[in-house]
């Protein structure tokens, strides 16, 4: 019995002295509660709504007011013509546009029915559905109040719902861009960090450093195959999603591929950075998977919109490169925007790449000393 207990004690020591097991045992459950409790929210909060009021009468103003003050929405803009709809969606802050037909109020009072259009941003199918449903509920409520107890069925506001960009509200519109983002950063960062730390672990790195190969040649040599293969990967995924799902690229393919190359480059430099802080392959894999994959899936806006999360997650996701790339890729693929709408995110990725390179070079130099 005594030797058994001694063995059990040893197991406890292993657990408490290894930061990885501690993290898995305590860190991950805590993180999951926080994340699933807050970030992964199926409610909407301050969803942007733009109003296109062709009528401007007392009734439309009252209904608008009721929608805005419900607490779920936030008014972003007032639109003046149909062309503005595409523009306002491209900016990204607006999730739905509400259009009141001409003489809305008059029609409602005289004929008993009036039309209302809800056009939602279909590039985020989940949000679009939620926003639409909430709006419809509020409109129904309004109708009941307005009609009064007696004339329940006599007055109807007829809503027409349209999904912009994604007419059939297919979820792969959301998944394909998200999957590209996730795969690229995982493969590039993970693979690069593993291949560099592998040389360190097996001692072949020393031999390479003593050889006439310059350090920059070693790094570039390691990175180039992954760059090429990842790019091929992107092409394959895009081709597959077009052939299998019929998902086209609405915007410029050249711009899309250029942004992909930037993202690949950023992920590769991130991999190099991870390798400079890892002593061996295991560490590199751990950091890449836990540090990259989980936050990317949950906090980058891939599945769960960032707008619906508490502010703190918004700030955390600001350091995650995938957050910016998801916006870029969704904009180009689904909304068809040009560089004008995504220059901020592009610039952020460029800066991040330079920062990663800078830190890696510094750490590498210190190691050589």
């Amino acid at each position, binding site marked *: 019995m005594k030797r058994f207990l001694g063995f059990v004690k040893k197991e406890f020591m292993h657990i408490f002295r290894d930061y990885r097991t501690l993290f898995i045992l305590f860190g991950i459950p805590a993180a999951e509660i926080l994340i699933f409790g807050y970030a992964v929210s199926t409610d909407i909060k301050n969803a942007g709504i733009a109003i296109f009021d062709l009528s401007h009468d007392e009734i439309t103003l009252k209904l608008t007011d009721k929608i805005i003050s419900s607490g779920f929405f936030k008014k972003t803009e007032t639109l003046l013509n149909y062309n503005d709809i595409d523009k306002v969606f491209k900016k990204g802050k607006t999730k739905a546009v509400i259009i009141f037909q001409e003489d809305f109020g008059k029609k409602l009072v005289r004929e008993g029915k009036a039309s209302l259009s809800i056009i939602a941003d279909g590039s985020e199918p989940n949000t679009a559905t939620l926003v639409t449903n909430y709006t419809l509920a509020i409109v129904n409520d309004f109708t009941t109040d307005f009609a009064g107890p007696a004339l329940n069925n006599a007055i109807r506001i007829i809503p027409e719902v349209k999904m912009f960009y994604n007419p059939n509200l297919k979820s792969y519109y959301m998944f394909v861009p998200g999957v590209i983002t996730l795969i690229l950063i995982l493969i590039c960062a993970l693979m690069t960090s593993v291949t560099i730390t592998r040389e360190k672990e*097996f*001692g*072949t790195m*020393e*031999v*390479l*450093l*003593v*050889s*006439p*190969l310059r350090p920059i040649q070693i790094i570039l040599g390691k990175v180039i195959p992954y760059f090429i293969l990842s790019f091929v990967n992107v092409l394959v995924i895009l081709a597959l999603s077009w052939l299998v799902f019929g998902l086209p690229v609405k915007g410029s393919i050249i711009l899309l591929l250029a942004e992909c190359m930037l993202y690949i480059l950023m992920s590769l430099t991130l991999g190099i950075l991870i390798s400079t802080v890892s002593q061996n392959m295991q560490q590199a894999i751990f950091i890449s998977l836990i540090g990259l994959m989980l936050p990317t899936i949950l906090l980058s806006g891939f599945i769960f919109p960032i707008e619906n999360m508490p502010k703190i997650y918004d700030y955390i996701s600001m350091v995650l490169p995938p957050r910016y790339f998801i916006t870029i890729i969704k904009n180009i693929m689904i909304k068809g925007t040009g560089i004008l709408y995504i220059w901020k995110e592009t610039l952020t990725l460029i800066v991040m790449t330079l920062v990663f390179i800078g830190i890696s070079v510094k750490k590498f130099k210190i190691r*050589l*000393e």
Partner: protein
Amino acid sequence: MDNTVISVHNLVKKFGSFVANDNLSFEVFKGEIFGFLGANGAGKTTAIRILSGLSKPTSGEVNVAGFDTYSQTEQIKRNIGYMCQKFSLYEDLTVKENIMLYGGIYGMKKTLIKERIHELLEKLHFEEYENRLISDLPLGLRQKLAFSVAILHEPKIVFLDEPTGGVDPITRRQFWEMIYETATRGITVFVTTHYMDEAEYCDRISIMSDGKIVALDTPDNLKKQYNAATVEEVFIKIARPNPATPQSRLGGTNTQHHSKLIPPKREQGGQNRDR
């Protein structure tokens, strides 16, 4: 002067306030087998890293293969070979692929590399291993191959960092035969080892302790000077930093655990090998 391949004057290497190499001065001559001994932590690895161009000295003059270590590191790297105890060959590449890789890195032409591959494989008697993965080879074979790859480009000096660690006595002997043969060809061999019996077969040895060189001479002279029967005794007498230091700091010597190396015959251009 022409005969000197490594010349070190007052080499100092500091890491912050810790002095890893404290005013080292020595010379190594062409075709010599120079043994670099010392306890773990004495500063050997630091010195070798400087000599092989991996890091720069804090101060002092260091010339390797006729090039200055401060400004001509690239030329140094092209003229030296290196083999360490942790393997230098890629396990998922074949014998031939590894040799082609390193030959290419050292700027050798493809035809020349191919010639050398054949010479090498014939000499080591493993022509049939040409297309086998390194992971398929036994340890002793890998070590011999790694050494051959280190000198493939006929460097002026080859640095061997504990090359025979973990290898059986027969392979160790064969390895030293290869070292002798290399030195006879005029390639200087700079070897570190913890095997004291291997130290006996060097032309000269130096013993480092606490960042300084405390002895530098032929094994015979040192044995006379310190009144010792073996180099191991010399080592124990002078490599102990001070009486208070625990035994473990000396790094231990390996002769207790392995049978003594049967001295390989050293002849001018001769091959004396039994398997």
